[in-house]
């Protein structure tokens, strides 16, 4: 058995880990698919408030599809076949990983962030839906391409086992995945249309917690928080909204900029001028999300906010919700 394997794998930094792993594995196999393309085809964009669930003792909002969904939808829509495996036993998980590396096959792994030693301490929360590629092993250290990092890194056997078997919500259970077959010719056109339609459907869903309606819902909650929960908790909640929107992986503006990049690329590929114009519009909506984050940060920075300032940021969100509603209706008609 070889003691050193290093697969010739090129690391490209991405904004978001799931798109990044897919894009990097596709590139490794000779298909040049960008991160925004993976995100758009996989219908990554979303807005969803998840009632009842609390993370870090604050309500949960997501600006993207559930972990694993982007991936699954991208593979289905492009005809790429993926092999996915989960394990109950860390030993088996390690053996299968080593086996793949021996065969020169880089694999994607789902991991927990809390024990990811190369992350800054402040970012290490119990979040279990992070993704990375393992592309080799050297002196008992696994060679890691973590898409959100600028450069490649490495983890010891023990460190990797810990993050692969993190516990809690979305526990990875050693989840490992890699493409096993590709269509003869990768045709993105149809996949793009499917991806866009799906995103429009969920953003316009007649469900109070999802899409444009979900944004209105959160705006309403923000108006109530200071009275209902007190200033301290209201600020804590508001801070979490901003963190979910802007944290590493979103590419800024709650994934709206990545989506705008996708629409621009898709517009060129499909020779559809409307998509290119809509990309511009989405960028402007992204800017409004940034303005909201900036305004919200002024509230929780000063800690002495009046109810008025909560209403002001809630107004911003209501405005964004109205714009997104119109936007996705137009987008639906443009393809």
């Amino acid at each position: 058995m070889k003691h050193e394997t290093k697969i010739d794998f090129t690391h490209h930094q991405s904004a978001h880990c799931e798109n990044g792993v897919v894009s990097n594995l596709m590139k490794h196999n000779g298909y040049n698919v960008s991160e925004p393309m993976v995100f758009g085809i996989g219908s990554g964009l979303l807005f969803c408030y998840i009632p009842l669930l609390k993370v870090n003792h604050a309500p949960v909002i997501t600006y993207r599809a559930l972990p694993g969904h982007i991936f699954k939808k991208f593979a289905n829509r492009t005809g790429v076949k993926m092999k996915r495996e989960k394990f109950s036993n860390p030993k088996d998980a390690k053996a299968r990983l080593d086996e793949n590396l021996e065969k020169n096959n880089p694999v994607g792994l789902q991991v927990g962030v809390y024990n990811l030693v190369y992350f800054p301490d402040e970012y290490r929360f119990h979040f279990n839906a992070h993704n990375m590629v393992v592309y080799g092993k050297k002196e008992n250290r696994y060679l890691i391409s973590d898409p959100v990092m600028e450069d490649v890194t490495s983890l010891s056997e023990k460190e990797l086992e810990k993050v692969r078997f993190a516990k809690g919500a979305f526990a990875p259970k050693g989840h490992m995945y890699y493409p096993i077959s590709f269509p003869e010719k990768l045709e993105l056109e149809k996949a793009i249309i499917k991806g866009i339609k799906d995103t429009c459907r969920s953003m316009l869903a007649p469900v109070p917690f999802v899409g444009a309606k979900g944004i209105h819902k959160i705006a309403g909650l923000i108006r109530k928080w200071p009275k209902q929960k007190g200033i301290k908790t209201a600020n804590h909640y508001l801070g979490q909204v901003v963190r979910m929107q802007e944290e590493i992986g979103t590419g800024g503006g709650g994934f709206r900029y990545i989506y705008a990049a996708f629409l621009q690329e898709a517009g060129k590929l499909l020779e559809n001028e409307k998509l290119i114009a809509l990309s511009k519009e989405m960028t402007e909506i992204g800017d409004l999300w940034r303005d909201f984050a900036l305004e919200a940060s002024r509230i929780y920075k000063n800690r002495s906010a009046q109810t008025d300032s909560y209403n002001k940021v809630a107004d911003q969100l209501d405005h964004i919700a109205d714009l997104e509603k119109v936007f996705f209706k137009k987008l639906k008609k443009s393809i």
Partner: protein
Amino acid sequence: MKKKEVPQDKSNLESANFRELCYAVDENGEYTTENSTGWEPKTVALNNAIEEIHERIEDAKHRVIKGETSPIEYYMELHKMDVGILASYVGFWQWKVKRHFKPSVFKKLSEKTLQKYAEVFEISVEELKSMHR
């Protein structure tokens, strides 16, 4: 967001020496990417969240000293966990973990149970009992 407007504020990313990737448009309106060292509004949000965790840890510590809760709750907070996460790591039901917060119950816990918690928190049983760190 324009490429030249991608914020380059000081942030917690500095300690790990990395910059995150943002999407922005260049002067011709073409999408491109740019690295960012951080953005103040989210640094403040993150720092507040961390401060909140520190307050929770301090609070748990005081309650352990006052005999209102067991060190398990303190270590849980120290590891940024909640009852659900801790329960899944030790493999107990949540109500059982909550029961172990009671000092009277904690005192009577078996060595085996204590060992489970100690392993999750990466400390010795002695350290778990005494809350020293």
